[in-house]
């Protein structure tokens, strides 16, 4: 029988503002984020047991950009360190697994990305099947539009609901100093805008963002020593659906459902921070995770308000930790996604003491 996993806590967190075009380099804007997360945790840089980063060289268009990012960590003398070519949320998962070994008690996790130098519609098709989909230019907006169309046709959402989700996200983001798209918009007015890629309008799309976030994790004993307000990761899991979008029913996300079940998503939740990069995906994720009307979704504004790709999933953990450690919330869900049209999904249950 498998050994029960140890509860790991978030003891430090920070994020950069979401920039449309950062003037600073990625390590330059990562630097204060990592320092702030470590300071909040009260863990000296040299005492961190394991460091894991998530980023993508294709975004900034520089080979080994992820190595440059270590400039912001302080990696000399050498540290124990790893990198995933994925959102920082998966770096958090790797660090969570590493902490289960029991020989170290803290880990630093960060995610960062600069989407502004390239054109997302050119860069993202490169992650697709190189024979049939990359040459077609299958980018996230096109695939999300197909998904939204499938959901509309299946009666799982309406364009009105999509505009309401977008308007609510922008309104929530007004209180988020890190958000990029915010304001008080009337859904009826938003619906008068033309389509960008039918059936998606501008408000259904995430902004193009540069940014970073960081989290410090600690084992049960260490977390209690470091803080009176640890944010416990009670369960975490990630699952993947088939790579070829043509072989999926885009109106469902079995990987989200399974990851949610394995992470222990049941019972009452105060809030959820979901990586719904397109408005319709919020509805799909809520349905798959069984989150009802009583759960407040993306109080930060979510990815529709700030979308630093490769950090945006980890930022869900940062926002969730902030709501619990500083906002008086008790229990929430953090979700991250990877691939196209919610292909791969990571779900965690976070709780106050």
């Amino acid at each position, binding site marked *: 029988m498998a050994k029960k996993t140890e509860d790991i806590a978030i003891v430090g967190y920070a994020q950069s503002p979401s920039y449309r*075009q950062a*003037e*600073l*380099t990625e*390590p*330059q804007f990562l*630097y204060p984020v990592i*320092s702030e997360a470590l300071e909040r945790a009260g863990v000296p*840089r040299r005492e961190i047991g394991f460091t894991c980063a998530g980023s993508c060289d*294709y975004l*900034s*268009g*520089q080979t080994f*950009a992820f190595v440059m990012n*270590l*400039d*912001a*960590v*302080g*990696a*000399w003398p050498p540290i124990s360190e790893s990198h995933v070519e994925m959102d920082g949320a998966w770096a958090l998962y790797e660090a969570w697994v590493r902490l289960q070994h029991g020989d170290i008690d803290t880990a630093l996790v960060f995610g960062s990305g*600069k989407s*502004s*130098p*390239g*054109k997302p519609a*050119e*860069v993202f098709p*490169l992650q697709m099947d*190189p*024979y049939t989909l*990359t*040459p077609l230019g299958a980018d996230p907006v096109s695939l999300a539009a197909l998904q939204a169309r499938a959901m509309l046709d299946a009666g799982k959402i309406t364009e009105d609901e999509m505009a309401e989700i977008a308007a609510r996200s922008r309104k929530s983001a007004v209180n988020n100093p890190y958000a990029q798209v915010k304001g008080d918009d009337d859904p009826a007015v938003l619906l008068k805008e033309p389509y960008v890629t039918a059936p998606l309008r501008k408000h259904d799309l995430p902004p193009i963002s540069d940014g970073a976030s960081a989290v410090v994790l600690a084992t049960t004993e260490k977390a209690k020593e470091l803080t009176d307000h640890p944010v416990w990761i009670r369960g975490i899991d990630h699952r993947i659906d088939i790579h070829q979008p043509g072989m999926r029913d885009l109106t469902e996300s079995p990987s989200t459902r399974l990851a949610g079940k394995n992470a222990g998503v049941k019972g009452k939740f105060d809030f959820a921070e979901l990586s719904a990069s397109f408005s319709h995906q919020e509805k799909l994720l809520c349905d798959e995770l069984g989150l009802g009307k009583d759960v407040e979704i993306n109080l930060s504004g979510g990815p529709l308000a700030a979308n630093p790709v490769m950090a945006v999933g980890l930022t869900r953990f940062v926002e969730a930790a902030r709501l619990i450690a500083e906002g008086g919330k008790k229990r929430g869900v953090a979700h991250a996604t990877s691939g196209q049209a919610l292909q791969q999904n990571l779900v965690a249950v976070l709780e106050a003491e």
Partner: protein
Amino acid sequence: MAESQAADLNAPVVGMDYHMHVQYHEVLCPVMREFADALMDKRLIGHKCPQCGLIYSPPKGYCPICVVPTDKSHELELQQRGTVTNYTIVTPVQYHGQEETDRFAKASLQLDGGGTLSLQDLLEIPVDDVRIGLRVEAVWASDAERNVDEVTNRSWGIGESAIRGWQPTGEPDVPADELPTNVF
């Protein structure tokens, strides 16, 4: 379905060319802009870490070893003369898009008075004569030709359009054991 798949196994393999082009436009970060402006004035600048004293050229805006920020107050001008501390001879492979045809050397330099530069071009010397300890000096592009178009956040700082390369000074070589061991 199964029948057509079986038939396909005997068909000749068909190849497909797919050329992709992805273009990036990045704004120059503030410290690199200062570095580029200095190059236009034929000056080479760096930041000296207030803690360990290492000099970074081009400046980074922090010392990655000590993890402390650096700014204009840590700026200093570097000498334009130095010593080859290491080098690599590159033999160009003629892949698609390759513009180089002849062997060439890229050198690491230790500048007199402090500071290092990586991946520098050497001029006026045959590739086979390049050696550790060689004394060199900067050869600037002329005022009319000099530009900083090749300076980016992602480069090692100096495009050939500003400093064309480094040429031997004719001074005796520095013995290898007198060279510093640090790379940066």
